[in-house]
């Protein structure tokens, strides 16, 4: 034992230089697979998602009025100008039509 502790160990892992390069290459290739990185960091990105989500729910909780039909300014908009939901002015200004875009695709 005593003797060994003074020995210079050139290759403690018992791998040749060629094997070391191969292993290194495999590790690099493994890390190059995007899904590996993604799994490694999804926890951190979902932390940001959750923080922002919480921020908006807080904005709701602290609001004095929490239902759209209770928005006095929206009621005033309809009374002074817009008429009723789905009424004539609403259809003209607040509703739209969509376009079939597949015809041009083919």
């Amino acid at each position: 034992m005593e003797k060994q502790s003074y020995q210079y160990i050139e290759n403690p892992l018992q791998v040749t230089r060629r094997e070391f390069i191969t292993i290194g290459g495999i590790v690099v290739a493994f890390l190059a697979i995007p899904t590996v990185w993604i799994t490694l960091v999804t926890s951190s990105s979902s932390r940001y998602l959750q923080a922002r989500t919480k921020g908006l729910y807080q904005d709701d909780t602290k609001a004095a009025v929490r239902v759209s039909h209770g928005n006095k300014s929206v009621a005033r908009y309809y009374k002074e100008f817009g008429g009723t939901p789905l009424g004539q002015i609403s259809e003209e200004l607040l509703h739209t039509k969509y376009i079939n875009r597949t015809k041009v695709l083919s």
Partner: protein
Amino acid sequence: MNVTAKTYQKGEIPGVIAINATVCKGCDACKRHCPTGAITGMFGTTHRIDVDLCLSCGQCLINCPFGAPYETSDTVDEVIAKLKDRNNTVVGIIAPAVRVAIGEDFGLPAGSLVTGKLYGSMKKAGFEILDNNFTADLTIMEEGTEFITRARHALFGEKSEHGGEIGPLPQFTSCCPAWVRFVETRYPTLIPHLSSAKSPQQMAGTVAKTYGTNVWKKSPESIYTVGIMPCTAKKLEASRPEFNAAYKYNKKNGRGLTNKPYPDVDTVLTTRDLSRLFKKLKIDLAQEEEVAGGSLLADYTGAGTIFGNTGGVMEAALRTAYAVLTGSELKPLEFKPVRGLQGMKSASVTLKDAKYNKEVTVKVAVVHNMAENIQPVVNEVLAGRSPYHFIEVMNCPGGCINGGGQPVCSSGSSWISAIRPWFAWK
């Protein structure tokens, strides 16, 4: 500009997102975030976006570890010029998700709710404020009423008041332009299922240039509307040529001064764009005073603000639909089953329709992260065996709070910030 683009109308931005070929490493990471498979290119080679398939959602942009995708439309300097020109009233339309993300660009913790500081910074820059949450409430009034009409038609055979056609169930939400374009380019047979209500952004532009002329006492031509959005697809939405309803209305009613058509929303800035604008004008949002919105068009409710979260539109719509149908408020107001990050959420509410004195069970579903979750829902509706009455769809994972226009590096909504320390040379 791509001259071969076929799925765009004249005047529309043909694809808001492109990939910078000299930066792209071909690592394929973006592909799994793309809802339509619009990104082509072999592993290791430069990737390209097929603009006809692309929805301009920007998910590839916020998730690329090398920052290769970029926005083809940047109007920060144009907006600054408009702000400096005193003849204009520049109206900033602030989307819900912006107020919990923009702080990240000014060193505040993720998720900080900075509505007051954001108003303060906008006013300092010269904007009038139209809170998009106001029009989110307006959207609920329109889309919720539309849903009740459709449901009563399907369940009780009720006829339309104005003799118009009533769309089928399930009704899909229409606030997300990436989802709308997805339907338009792939499943046009589903178009009647989309709510005809415009998105809050487009309602805001129209209201600003019609009713807003009374609020700000300005002519419609001098009002310049800027969508401030967490979203790159909103840039494409605003460029749709049919969105000049305010111009048509004003002309018909003799309220206009000119015959030159103007769009409802003149331009769109993403959350990132707005941060750049503030920085160019030397405004530090973190240090700004908190101020109030300043007009009735900035008044909003808790229901309007949760639009930015997945499930938020549905929750807001249920609160109002419940009250309209039963005559009493939903208790508790928090509707937990539609919250959270599961790919697909569903719930049902049994209530009594006071008008018909009958019990009905309303079944709703909420989908986000279209890249992973949309196909089964679409297939069910196409096959005519969807059990739901009302379905909310948002393209981005988590909803607009994680939109393609939100802050990237500082926030870590992309995974680059977590990976960066691994690159010792950076």
